[in-house]
């Protein structure tokens, strides 16, 4: 009898030992999930559609070499009518090489009168700022600008 209970105990321990790496792996996966790679974000935003080059209607005012990567001012003006049936409904600012690349998503209404956004973005290294604009009809415009960062400001 004693031998049997001893065997049971070792089996139980062995199973826990086998399960442990699995649990550990799950914990790692959860940790990784909070990173937001640029590729995933842009795929989610486009959701199968193609982005039109918006450099003709979008004006990006971003310094090429900011003093500090922690505060990079990004100013976007989009030359697009803001009528009740044809307007820009969303402006999203993304970076490309941060751990989390989503900066801001701005939902507009025709009451805004013009499509404009100013926001401060932080950057860990030299990379691009990508601005995506979506119209209420689902068309997506994209414009980007590379920014050289000497002093990173992102953990």
């Amino acid at each position: 009898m004693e031998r049997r209970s001893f065997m049971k105990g070792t089996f139980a321990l062995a199973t826990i030992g086998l399960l442990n790496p699995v649990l550990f792996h799950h914990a790692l996966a959860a940790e990784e999930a909070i990173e937001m790679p640029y590729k995933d974000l842009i795929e989610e935003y486009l959701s199968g559609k193609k982005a039109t080059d918006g450099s003709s209607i979008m004006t990006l005012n971003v310094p090429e070499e900011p003093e500090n990567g922690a505060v990079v001012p990004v100013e976007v003006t989009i030359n697009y009518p803001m009528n009740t049936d044809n307007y820009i409904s969303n402006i999203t600012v993304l970076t490309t090489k941060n751990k989390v690349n989503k900066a801001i998503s701005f939902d507009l209404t025709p009451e805004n009168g013009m499509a404009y956004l100013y926001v401060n973005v932080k950057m860990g290294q030299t990379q691009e700022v990508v601005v995506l604009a979506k119209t209420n009809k689902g068309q997506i415009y994209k414009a980007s600008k590379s920014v050289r960062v000497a002093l990173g400001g992102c953990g």
Partner: protein
Amino acid sequence: MELRGTIKILDEGYKVGDVVKAKIIVIHKMDTGFTKDKESGKQFPRFYMKEINVAYNGKVIAHFDLDVATSQNPVIQFPFKVTGAGELVVDFINSESDKAQKKVAVTPVG
């Protein structure tokens, strides 16, 4: 920690029908969840300003979804069309669902 934020209309002497810009400043950390405390080596949890809603005379005109790539103490400027006297009401919500509200009067000239 108390959540502090403010809104200001940048233009002066605007009339009904003009498009003016407003500026929002929030005093808030934007911790990514990846940074470590230099002394204790502890990881700071992700803690950031999550959502900002702007309503003009009761109607939501702008909605911002922020994430941690925005700088600490975020500064945002956005436009809006003046349709009459009233007020802008801004609601701030952070990642721990703390809330704050701030108002500013819209007073067009003439």
